[in-house]
C-alpha cells in the first residue's frame, strides 16, 4: 500500500526538479531525496505513471513527459528564467511559460515545411497569435497514445 501523501510529494518533487534543472530526476535521485530504495521509488514512479501524473519510458524507467515538460529534446525549445526547456508539443511550448508564470522565448519548428519560428510570451501576451496548432485526437482519446497526441 503506497503512502498517498508521499506519492504527491514525489510528483511535486519531479516537477520542481524539472523547473529548477530542466530535466526530470532519475529514480535514484528521487530515492535519495525521500530516503527510499530504488525499488520503492520505482514503484512510486509507476503509480504516478498509471495515474497520468507523468509518462514513463517503462524500459529505461525514465520520465519521458511530465507535461508540459519533455524529458528528451524536441522541436519545441523554450527559454525562460535563464534556462532552456523542451516542450512535448506546440501546446506544451506555451504550457511551460504558463506553468512557470514566466516570460519566454520559444524556438519551434513548423511541421511539414520544417521552417523555424520564434515566438515570445511577454507580460501575459503571446506573439504570432494567428499561427495554427493542430490537435489530432479528440479529448476522449488523448490517453490512447500520448506520444502521438
Amino acid at each position, binding site marked *: 500500500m503506497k503512502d498517498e501523501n508521499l506519492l*504527491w*510529494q514525489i*510528483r*511535486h518533487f519531479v*516537477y*520542481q526538479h524539472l*523547473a529548477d534543472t530542466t530535466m526530470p530526476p532519475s529514480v535514484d535521485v528521487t530515492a535519495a531525496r525521500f530516503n527510499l530504495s530504488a525499488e520503492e521509488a520505482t514503484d512510486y514512479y509507476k503509480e504516478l505513471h498509471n*495515474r*497520468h*501524473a507523468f509518462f514513463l519510458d517503462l524500459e529505461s524507467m525514465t520520465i519521458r513527459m511530465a*507535461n*508540459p515538460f519533455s524529458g528528451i529534446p524536441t522541436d*519545441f525549445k523554450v527559454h525562460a528564467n535563464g534556462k532552456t526547456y523542451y516542450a512535448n*508539443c*506546440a*501546446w*506544451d*511550448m*506555451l*504550457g*511551460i*511559460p*504558463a*506553468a*512557470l*508564470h514566466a516570460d519566454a522565448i520559444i524556438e*519551434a*519548428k*513548423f*511541421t*511539414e*515545411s520544417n*521552417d523555424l*519560428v520564434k*515566438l515570445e*510570451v511577454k507580460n501575459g501576451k*503571446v506573439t*504570432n*497569435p*494567428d*499561427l*495554427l*496548432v*493542430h*490537435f*489530432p*485526437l*479528440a*479529448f*476522449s482519446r488523448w490517453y490512447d497514445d500520448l506520444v502521438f*497526441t
Partner: protein
Amino acid sequence: MLLFQSEEWIDKWRQRNNLERGEVLTVQQVWELSKLWYHNRLSMDYHGRSIEQVAEVFRQAGLTSDFWKV
C-alpha cells in the same frame, strides 16, 4: 500537437500522411487554454483533474465542440 503556418500546410501534411483532420486552434487560443490548464501544475496541491474540472477548463477556454467533449 503540431505547429503550422496556415491551413494549406495542414492539408499538405494530412494528405501526405493520410491523416484525418483534427481540431485547429490559433496560437492565441492555445495560449489561453495553456494558462487555464497549466497555471497550477507546479503546485504541491495539484493532484490531477476530475472530468468535471476538465470540462470547466474547456468551457472557460471557449472550446465547446464535440471534439472537446469529456
